[in-house]
Structure formats: C-alpha cells, structure tokens
C-alpha cells in the first residue's frame, strides 16, 4: 500500500511547474506512474503531492515540425502511442520498432516517453536511440523553456539535468537524411534490457561522413562513444572499419558492477551490439532511414 499523498491536476505547464517549485521535494510530476508508483509502494519515495500532468493539453502530440525536418514527440506521448503511430512508423521506423519491445503492452500503454527519460533508469531503451538520433529535449517551466541535447540529459544513475520544476515537454528528433541509416540493437535476458547499442551512419559516395554511436544499459547512463564515431569518419563502411569502432566501444564503455553479469561480458556485449548495429546501418538494405 502506498503512503499518503494528494493529487492535483494543473491546467498548464506553467501552473504545474509553479506547484512543484513551491512545494519543493514534497511534490513530483506524475504521468504514467510506471516507475514512480513502484518506488512509492516500496516507500522509497514518499511525495506528499502528485502533480498529474496527463491532462495538460497538447503534451502528448506526435507530429512533424512545420518544415517537416524533425519529428516532435510530446513528453506525454506513451510508448504505445509512439509504437503505433503511423507517422513514426513512416518517418522513423526504427523508433517505432524500438518501442515495440519496451516492457509489456500495459506498461507501454501507461508509460510516457518523457517519464521514462526523466526517470533515467539505466536499463531502458529509448534514451540510447534518441542520443544516436541527436534528439533534443525541451524542458519547460513557469519561467520558460530550454533545450538540452539528449546526450547531455542524463548525467548519472537515475540522475538528469532536469530541475524538479522542469517538465520534459517535447522531444525533437531531426529526421535522418536520405544518406543516413539508423539501427538499434538490444540484448535482453531480464524484464529490462541488459545492453543496447544505437548507431546512425551517413555514407556519402562510399565513405562514412557522419556517425553516432550510443551505448545503453551497461553503464550508469547511456552514452555516446565519440572515439568510435571518429574512427569511422572517412572510412568505407566495411566490416573491418566497424570492427575497429566496436573494439573502441568495448574498451571505452564504463560498465557498472552488478551481480547479473561481469564487466568483461558487458564490454563484450557492447562491442557485439555495436557491430550488429553498424552492420545493419551500413548495409545497403539494412537499417532504416527517413522515408
């Protein structure tokens, strides 16, 4: 049974933010509750006020920006909505595919993308892919809004740069160009993923001109591996080049110690998944890109 708390239902982002700002640690934003309520049941978190943001209009929209260059996801879009969105399936099918294997259908129906990202559970899928996609998160509060690159958002175990009164209102994902392909690979033996790798690869005239590699779940937070990305630039998208990049990933990731798998094996998994993601993103018929 949960401890005692009250619920309020603000009508706007400004109002919601103002409530949290005023109540301090006493109040938290509440959306899908998929992570929050479990911690509250364990009484690891005991907020006095849940600020229900689900009914704030517009926060669950899924749309293209007016120029059609970016996909805009409201922070309150649920995993299930992203998974099933015809628009997402059309313009960024890898994102929809990633969502199909998040937890189970009940969690995907209830859980929001924004909630998932703000919770920053390391064993989670979306952040890793969004980092590789160079997404930006819009944090809104009563005093305005700021954009944070996805790669800079999570700074540690269950920790982000978000201030308590800031609400993750929007995720902006620049749509990959025709020459860019995206692949997300996960490895999962428990309810939550054990390791994941996301890669975007832009190949121009047989040469990699841009690459982003993000590794999730093995460390305290999902991270890019710039050294591995740099190693690919200027190379032909070949198995050797991918292997060299994947070796760098193996050497540079910082695995967390836990009873479930050794650091050794986690490094190996990071390498293997990177290799698979790169191979898929680098293959003519593999990976996915824009329309």
């Amino acid at each position, binding site marked *: *049974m949960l*401890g005692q708390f009250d619920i309020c239902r603000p009508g706007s982002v400004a109002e919601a933010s103002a409530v949290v700002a005023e109540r301090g640690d006493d109040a938290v934003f509440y959306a899908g509750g998929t992570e929050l309520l479990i911690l509250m049941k364990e*009484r690891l978190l005991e907020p006095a006020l849940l600020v229900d943001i689900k009914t704030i209009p517009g926060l669950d929209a899924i749309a293209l920006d007016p120029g059609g260059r970016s996909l805009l996801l409201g922070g309150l879009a649920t995993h299930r909505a992203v998974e099933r969105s015809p628009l997402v399936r059309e313009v960024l099918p890898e994102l929809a595919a990633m969502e199909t294997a998040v937890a189970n259908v009940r969690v995907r129906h209830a859980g929001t993308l924004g909630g998932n990202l703000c919770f920053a559970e390391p064993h989670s899928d979306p952040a890793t892919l969004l980092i590789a996609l160079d997404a930006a998160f819009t944090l809104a509060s009563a005093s305005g809004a700021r954009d944070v690159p996805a790669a800079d958002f999570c700074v540690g175990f269950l920790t982000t740069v978000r201030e308590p009164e800031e609400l993750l209102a929007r995720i902006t994902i620049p749509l990959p160009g025709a020459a860019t392909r995206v692949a997300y690979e996960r*490895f999962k*033996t*428990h*309810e*939550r993923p054990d390791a994941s790798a996301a890669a975007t690869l832009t190949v121009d005239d047989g040469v990699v001109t841009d690459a982003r590699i993000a590794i999730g779940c093995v460390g305290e937070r999902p991270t890019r591996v710039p050294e591995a990305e740099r190693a690919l630039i200027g190379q032909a998208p070949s198995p050797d080049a991918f292997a060299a990049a994947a070796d760098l990933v193996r050497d540079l990731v910082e695995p967390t110690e836990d*009873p*479930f*798998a*050794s650091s050794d*094996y986690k490094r*190996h*998994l990071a390498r*293997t998944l990177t290799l698979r993601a790169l191979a898929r993103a680098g293959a003519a018929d593999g990976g996915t890109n824009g329309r």
Partner: protein
Amino acid sequence: MSHATTAPASEAVGRDVPRIDARIKATGEAKYAGDLVVPGMLYGRVWRSPAAHARIVRIDLNGADRAPGVVAVLTGADLSDIDPRYGHALKDRPLIAIDTVRFAGEPVVAVAAETQAAADDAMALIDVEFADLPVVATIDAALAEDAPHLHDTAALTPGLFHGLGKLTLEPGNVCYHHAFARGDVDALFAAADIVVEGEYEFPAVYQYAMEPHTTIAEWISDDEIVVHSSCQHPFLVRAELADLFGVPVANVRIVVPYLGGGFGSKSYTKMEPLTVALARKAKRPVRIANRVDESMVTTRRHGMKAWMRTAATRDGTLLAREARAWFDTGAYADNGPRVVATGADAAPGPYRWEAVKVDAWGVYTNTSPAGSYRAFGATHLQWCGELQVDEIGRRCGLDAVAMRERNLLEPGESVRPGGKPLDADLKGDIRKVAAALDWDAPKAPHVGRGVSVGLLAAGAHPVSTAFVRLEADGTATLLVSTTEVGQGARTVFSQIVAEELAMPVARVKVPGGDTDKTPYDRSTGASRSTTLAGMAVLRAAREVREQLAAIAARVFGLPEAAIELRAGAAWHEGEAVDYPALIAAHFGMVGGELMGRGEVRPDKGSGSYAEGPVFWEVCVGGVEAEIDPETGQVRLRKVVTVADVGKALNPKLVEAQEMGGSMQGIGNALYEEMLFDPHTGALQNATLFDYHVPTFADLPDAFASNIVENGDGPGPYGAKGVGEGALAGTTAAVATALADAGAVLDALPATPERVWRALRTRRDAAAD
C-alpha cells in the same frame, strides 16, 4: 501384468474430460485464500529482518501498537507460554524470531490491523536494533573450519514428519547427511579406461507459484484453531499447529481453497504458525498475505554444489560413479533432509553400475530457507551425471543414444538395493525422444542435440484415504483432501468415481479439502495424487459399487452376477432401475446415501507400496538448442518429453503437466537464479524485474510430449504419477544439448555469459 484394479470398457477414464473447475476459473469465480473474508478479519503485515545474522538488541515499536487501526503487535516475547519451534524434519525454526535472526527476511514483528493500509503504515514506525553476527551466506563459508554455527544442532529435536530414520547431528552447520555405497568404487576407478570428473553448481530457484502464500487464521475459545490457507499438505499443517499451540488435533481445522500454483512452495508448514500466533494475540481472525518478495524468502529450491566422477570401459560400458553433493538449505532445514536424500538417490542415474558411492549433505547458511520444488533432487543432479555419460560417449565414439542403449537399466532390474525394481522402459523412452528430435539429421553450426534420462523416487509416503457418498438423487460427492493446485486432481478423481460407479463425470462433485470434513491424505506432491489418493478414491467408489450391486440384487431378486451397473442404473435384460430408485428402495424413503471408504497404506494395495518408492518417476527429456556464439544466448528449437505414466487417465491433463513442467525446466536451465549477496546474505533479485520467470517470449520453437502407457504403474488402472519428470528431464537435456553444441557448463542456469565463457574455454583449449 494383471491388476486387480483394471476396469472393463472405460466410460470415463482415459478420456480428455474437461476440468471440472474450468468454468469457475474462466469466469473468475474460483476462490483462492486471498479472496476469502472471515467475519471480523484483520489484516496482517510482517516486519522482516534486513540483517542475515544478528542478535536482536531492542525492538522499538515507536507507537506502531497504538497507531490508528492497529489491533495487535506480535514479537518473540509473546510466545513464552509455548515452545515456538517447528519444522517437520527438524524443529529448528521459531515461528517469529526469538532473540536471533538467521536470514534476511526473517519475521521479527507481525502487526494485525483493521485494514491492510493500517498494517502497512505501521511498518514504517517499527525500528529494531541489531547486533551483527558473522554471516555465512554460502555453502563454503558454512563448512569452513571456523564458521559460526547457526544452530546448536546437537540439541535439535526431530520434527513430526522427518521420515528419515534416526537423526543424529554433530555440532556444525550440517543438518543432514545421507550416504550409500555398494561395490568397490576405488578399485573400479583405479582400473577404468575412462574417468570423467567434474564439479558442478546448481542455483537457488524460486518456485514462483503465481499466488503468494496466503493464510487466514482464527483462534477460538482458547483451544480451537481454524485456518484457511494456500497449503498443499493440510493434514501435516494441522498436526504441526496442534503440536505448536498445545491443542488437540481435532481442534485444528484446515480449509484449503483453490491454490494459485504450488510446485512445492506450499508444501508442509509455511506462514500458518505465524498467522495463528498473531490471531491468538489479536483475539480476532487475521489474514497474512505475503507479497512476492516475502514469498521468495519464505521458501525456495536448494542451491547445490557437487563433485562427481564416473568410470567406464573404453567401449563405453559404465562401471562406477561417485558423487558428493552439498545442498544449501538456508537458515532452517524445512524439507532439506528429504531433498538431500532424494538428490542422493538421483545421483547415480538409472544405469547398471558395478559400484556407486554417494554422499550428500544439507548445509545451513544465513540465507532464506529452502524446501521442496517440483522434481527436487533429480533436477539438482541429473544434469551432472548426464553430462558425464555424454563425455564418456564422446571419448569412446558413442553418441548419446548409443551410450544409453548400452547402459540403461531394463525393466525389473534393481535400481537400489532393497528398493522397488525399475518399473519403466527407459530405452524405449529414449528412442522416442531421439526419433522426435530427428536424431541422425545433420546439424547446423552451433546447434546441439541432447537427451537425458533419470529417475525420481516418487510418491512420498503411501497413506491416503477417501470417502464417496452416493446421494439420494444419484449424484456423488467425493471427499478427498488432495489439494487442487492446478494439476487437475479433482477432475481425475471424478473420472475414477464415474468409472467405478458407471455414471457421468458431470454428476460427481469434488469439494475442496477441509480437515473437519474430508479424510486424511498425507500430502499433495511428489507426483502422488493420481497414484495414491486416486487409489483410495477408487476403493471408496468400489465399496459403493458393491453396495449398489447388493441392493440391486435384492430389488431384482436375482444374483448379483445377473446384474450390470451402467449409465447410472442397474440393468437386467433391458430392464433398468436407476440409482435413486435403488437408494430409495434401500432406505424405504426418498433420502439417505450410500457411503464408501477407501484407504491406501504401505502394506495394502497391489502389494508394492511398502517397497519404496511408490514408483520410479521417469525424467526423460530431449532438446535441440542453438547458441548465438557472439552473445552466448540460447534458443531452443525443440523440446521433447516423455510421460511414462502407465495409463493416462486424462491424456490432456498429462500433456498439460508435461508442457508446464518442461517450461519450468527451461527456466531452471536457462534463466532462474536467486542471487544472494555472498557477504550480506541478502537476496538481490527479489522482483520480477531481476528474477526472470519464463514468458511467452521464451517458448521453444516446437514442443512434443510422448505419453507412454505400459500399464506398469501401481495406481488406478495401472497408472503412475506425472508432473515432475518433465522438469528434471528438460533441465538436463538443455545441458546435454548445449554441451553437444560446444558449451559444456559446470554451473546452471546457462546464462548467456556462462555459455559464452564455456564456448571461449573450449576455443582456447582447442587452440592450445
């Protein structure tokens, strides 16, 4: 082979009769312990120790006992008027911690309140000061020379149902030692062409019955106890409660609703003593419904480490096996001694040995207590022995099937001296598995095929009783105390009654167990219910049948031989008198009932119950597995089991046991492992986030079960039990299949990391 119990042309038995509880389970109407509300019932919650080994210095309730809604708070101090120790094997466990805690999760304070919320809220107030004692969280730590002792073992007294002969314990952390030997093991190993030796580890596993342990207890008039509980063995719980609280057995009533799965987790006594003690303190009925993390530290499967070696000639004839196994029983023995003995029995495997030597020990550690889980013992050791048989085969050029053709026991051969000879055709079973796996077909890289065969001493103690009442309207009520855990026992029993009384299954009612109303049954487990309770049911029904025949003879004025019972009536040459009319004729009014009583004892029946075990349950499996060499992840392409059941009274329910048992075997083989911190003893994966129970996503690509009906069982119509063999057989076959694919494991579960390492070890060895 002929059986006195073989019935003529079957109307009800041997058919896929739908479960008699199907409808109420599909509509949500079936009642489980947590669905029941007793008038005046309070809600309990247990404050459990975070420390694995510590002295309790001070319990500070901080007003929990005066908090709104709280009615009673129980601590060890409330039990000074009774001996609070219980345990059916060893009385080593206080029903709530007294002075000392021995595992993280041990109950220290119990609260009863008007609502669950109030009981839960009270938990936050309680504060307990501990003085840490050294923690022994592993078998090795517990057996170390200078290890602290969890119990004063020499002073422990046997429980009511230890069933293990004379129990004498040395000081230390060993709660049981089981050993047997025959033949000259040392000489055979010294002279053998091939010797394979290995060390193995098997994990602690949680049964994960979907329904956590739930008990409602009432304490009435100071000497009467009524309990509704999710328990598999109500009569053993009744006896232990009577013993603990010093009341007559007849004053303890255990009512068992439907169980949301058991698999051994609800065998023997679990949360009942604590709930009764809390109700006694509160003077009100109390319910304690465990949360899953609490049930995970209430019982589990034993983790095990073992050493084993096997000797053979160069032509692949097995000669001798020696094994030592240590079972981690946690802080209290629970069913540990029996698990140790059964594991030792399973260690040799069903082969023709010139010599065997087996030693097995139960070891106390500061972890949660371990007890029964489906196919215990066999699951622990079958995979080790089968890996060694296959390794010998590899060295002498015989494949796994040929090795078993050469060495398996034949029906009638001795399995162990003084025990029941083999009552199954194991070679025939293995041939079926091999055929289903398309054994000789070429294999792709990283694909392996494996078989496994083992025996499990099944049946537990052969004591069961039953009453059949044929009511005045011709319907029957069967009173039997077997717990319906989902296996379908009530359905099979109704088929037996229908068969014997020549009436439709739908007219047989089988209410749940209630020790005030339904007669004694030793337990529900060890694959015993169809074989033993089923035989008591058959005998009870047959008594009624005899009465019907006698009444009919009087009604017709003919000898009994001239009368046939069929379709709910007595018949003579086209003339029928139905059962209601016979009963009315007998009593001279519309009313009354015919009653039959059946019992099973060791010295009765087909003459074989006295000779243990009741039957040898066959544990046969076959697996085709594919390994992803880059990650070590295993995909099962096919799983095959054999249900060697003598006679399938309900083939669909037999197949259901195989499907479910094999899936649990897959979980044990590939995923499931309770991780205790080796230093603190705390369980690190007490939720389904981190403890993986197989889901739809883990299904093999294909599954096939073979039902073998050789009529060679000691139960009704030649039946023998089913339910456990598929688990042990599948677990071992996963291990042998992985070995065939190149990953020879010395520890389960075969996590991707372990498989990946095993492949690398082999690759490195090949490179040397």
